[in-house]
């Protein structure tokens, strides 16, 4: 048998592996990163991609070379040389990957503890996920919203939880995600570094509306943030006089999270706006129209799946059994006031 040298595949490995590793290190494989912690994550990602690329090239070079050099010639029916094994070789390819793994593991550990390290003067934001919307609370300002607005360069501590099933808080540009679990409060920290608009996407299957469980995220300058805070606090002060029942309804629709999907100012959101809803002719998805009266509101809230508003998805949770009659009355009363 002719002795084949490992020179060719070795050279091939480097010829293929180094460009591949460099390519994977450099290529923009992830969306742009918008938080400080993300730099470390991206670094780790690139490192692993480069290593994986090299290992891939190594194996593919040797296999590819073998397939060509050691293919069976026509007419040859003999067997190959009986090589049974080689202990030094086996030890090498056990120990080298082990070392690589420990290297990556240590870096990974360091990054993990680094990104979760508490920072001075953090701002706390509480996040609640429920089917199928998000609610954000800023305890420092007493604001509750369905849009996440963050000042740039301000370390934020998110305390996340859920009320019904498990959801997951994920803004791809913020890199890490964290599950929101009923009965638990999880903590994750981010420092936004890039002004812009992003989308929060629920990343844990939570039912039919999971795909649409989104929220708007805005990273703004510090001054803009303060402006927004002032505006929000103003908006939430009782500007007009509501009957006690309607006031109760307003409070409830905030607490129950209705306002995460419905607006009261006419702008569209996940669900249709409540402004001017009562008394109007509502087109339904099945082509018919219906007059919005108390009975319709009642079914729409208790069993929203029965009549779907045209242009919207059937993702509103059914509130049957979750709302007392009085509470339902109150909410309907409140909707009526929104002319």
């Amino acid at each position: 048998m002719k002795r084949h040298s490992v020179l060719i595949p070795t050279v091939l490995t480097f010829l293929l592996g180094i460009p591949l590793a460099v390519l994977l290190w450099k290529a923009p494989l992830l969306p742009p990163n918008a938080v400080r912690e993300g730099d470390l994550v991206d670094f780790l990602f690139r490192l692993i991609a480069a290593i994986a690329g090299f290992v891939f090239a190594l194996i593919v070079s040797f296999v590819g070379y073998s397939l060509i050099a050691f293919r069976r010639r026509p007419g040859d029916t003999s067997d190959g040389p009986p090589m049974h094994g080689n202990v030094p070789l086996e030890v090498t390819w056990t120990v080298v990957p082990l070392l690589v793994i420990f290297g990556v593991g240590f870096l990974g550990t360091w990054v993990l503890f680094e990104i979760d390290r508490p920072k001075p003067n953090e701002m706390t934001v509480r996040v609640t996920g429920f089917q199928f919307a998000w609610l954000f609370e800023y305890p420092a300002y007493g604001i509750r919203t369905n849009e996440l607005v963050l000042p740039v360069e301000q370390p934020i501590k998110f305390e996340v939880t859920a009320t019904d099933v498990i959801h997951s808080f994920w803004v791809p540009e913020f890199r890490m995600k964290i599950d929101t679990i009923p009965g638990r409060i999880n903590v994750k920290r981010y420092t936004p570094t890039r002004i812009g608009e992003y989308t929060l996407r629920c990343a844990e299957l939570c039912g039919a509306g999971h795909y649409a469980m989104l929220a708007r995220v805005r990273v703004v300058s510090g001054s803009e943030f303060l402006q927004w805070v002032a505006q929000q606090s103003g908006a939430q002060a009782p500007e007009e006089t509501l009957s006690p029942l309607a006031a109760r309804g307003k409070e409830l629709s905030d607490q129950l999270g209705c306002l995460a999907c419905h607006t009261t100012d006419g702008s569209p959101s996940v669900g249709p706006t409540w402004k001017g809803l009562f008394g109007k002719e509502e087109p339904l998805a099945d082509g018919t129209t219906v007059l919005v009266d108390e009975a319709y509101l009642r079914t729409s809230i208790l069993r929203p799946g029965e009549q779907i508003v045209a242009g919207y998805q059937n993702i509103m949770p059914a509130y049957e059994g979750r709302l007392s009659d009085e509470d339902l009355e109150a909410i309907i009363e409140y909707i009526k006031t929104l002319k």
Partner: protein
Amino acid sequence: MRLLWSLGLIRGLVWGIVGTAIGIGFTMLVRMALGKPAWETAPVTFVAAVFGTLAFLAGVGAFADWWRWASGEEAGDPPHHHEGPEWVRYFNFDTDHKIIGVQYTITSLVLMFAAGIMALIMRLELAQSGLQFVTPEQFNSAMGLHGIVMIGSILLGVAGMANYLLPLMLGAPDMAFPRLNALSFWVAPPAAILLFLSLAFGGFDTGWTGYPPLGAVGATGKQFFYLGVFFLGFSSILGAINFITTTLKMRAPGMSMFRMPIFVWGVFAAAWIQLTGTQFIGTSFLMVVLERLLGMGFFDPEKGGDPVLFQHIFWFYSHPAVYIFVLPGLGVISELLPVFVRKPLFGYKWVALSSMGIATVGFLVWAHHMFTVGLPNEANTFFMFTTMLVAVPTGVKFFSWVATMWGGKIEFRTPMLFLLGAFVTFLLGGLTGPFLAVVPVDQYLHDTYFVVGHFHNTMFGGFVFPFLAAIYYWFPKVTGRMYSERLGKVHFWLMLVGFVAQTGSMFQTGLFGMRRRIADYDPSLGFDTIHLIGSIGGYLVFFSMLIFAYNMIRSLVAGEKAPANPWNSRSLEWLLPSPVKGVSWPTPPVVVGHPYDYGVPNATFVRLAPAGGSDRSSQTTTPAHETKEANR
């Protein structure tokens, strides 16, 4: 009519329906006696499903011998003779491991087909942004069914290969417990029926992982899903008892553990996971069913339960489960590679032990599926290291395969092509594992299509490709006929191209933030083209599998007669006639050497015992002292 009734499958279905009806009536009577409304879907269907399954088994005849034993008769050894046409046996409760192996394999392919249809529905919907064909609920049901039925298909496929091959490769007459073996197969059809019945009861929108609290509320379809998986698991556990016992106790004389064919090592390692791990998924699902039926709040925080506990129990099985899928598959690669390379398996012992290593370490890594649930970082770090540790024994396999090829005489027959396909796809799948193992990176990638790409690569590379290689390779053994080599090659290339397109799009979109398990994606992400390519790829894979089906069926009827040993293999099973008739090894052969001594002059693996009366033994006789040594 007589003929139909003589088919166990038909009897089972009829009995099953009757049993279901009895279950419904019984539950309603009990409920009325207790003063409750007679009908409530969940409890009634639960009892009916259990009754129906048991009745199905009784109708098939699974309990006949046990019933005889319990009523004091001797049941004796299972019969090896039968009347009527041969094909009838495949639809009956039959204790011959070869029949059972084929039953498992065909069922596996049928389930794969059904799950493939589900995948096509998903890919159709995903080909473009926007909701076009299905509602989100339907999408979720299709997605979950696709996942769990594919996984069921894998479990049955593994059991099919193991059942057919273990006794043949070990020189045993049959499995250790033939009746139990048949029972474990026949539990699978009702389990599959239960899974699909979930569609009739509102589907299930939890994905194959079935996490509560979502799984604990909503449509009754979820209950069918949990029950179906529970029965599948039961079948799997019973199978494992057989595999382990057969491997440990039924080896031919002279076959020490380190002279076993390497495939047996793969099955043996996987069987330990099946035996121990499966209880965890079974019990966790049962706990959710109890929560649904009786309100026992295991996983409900308001009642003192904990949703994260479920994930621990679930993944304690479901991670090691992925090694049930691959260990036999990698076993097939290690088994066939020497045949097509005409060289001994490089580092046999290392490869054998690496299977055990993977199985062992596999039990220490479960929480890598839970890096985002908020475990303490100390725990996350531990699981990160153990997870990456699996790369070491897997790497040993890879490098040993490379070394096996080195210097060989590689022959590109269809099974070999599938081995190479397995090689590349499993490498891609494996190498994407460490990304997911490193906690901070996984916190980005978790629940994205990157994970979907990872596991399609590992499962295709670790199971689907090797499984197909195995089917092509042992087709002549099972049927006595050759398949069409040309169609086989067409199948391979189409499948490879389709698969690369399919998973390429998964990786690409996943990295860019495409979430898993969504019916619709944001058009502003710009994924439409890539998803379209992925969909086309998925359809190509399906189409190539249709060619495969055609090839198999046509060759079964009209293929040319296979030579006795078409691959010139040294394995035991090729010493028997194809197809193997009757008892596999009435008298065990005597093992005197190693299974993979290709190219070793005058090497002998087995000597057929005189009673075997055949000359197809290996080339030379061996001095007596060697036999003794092997017996130690």
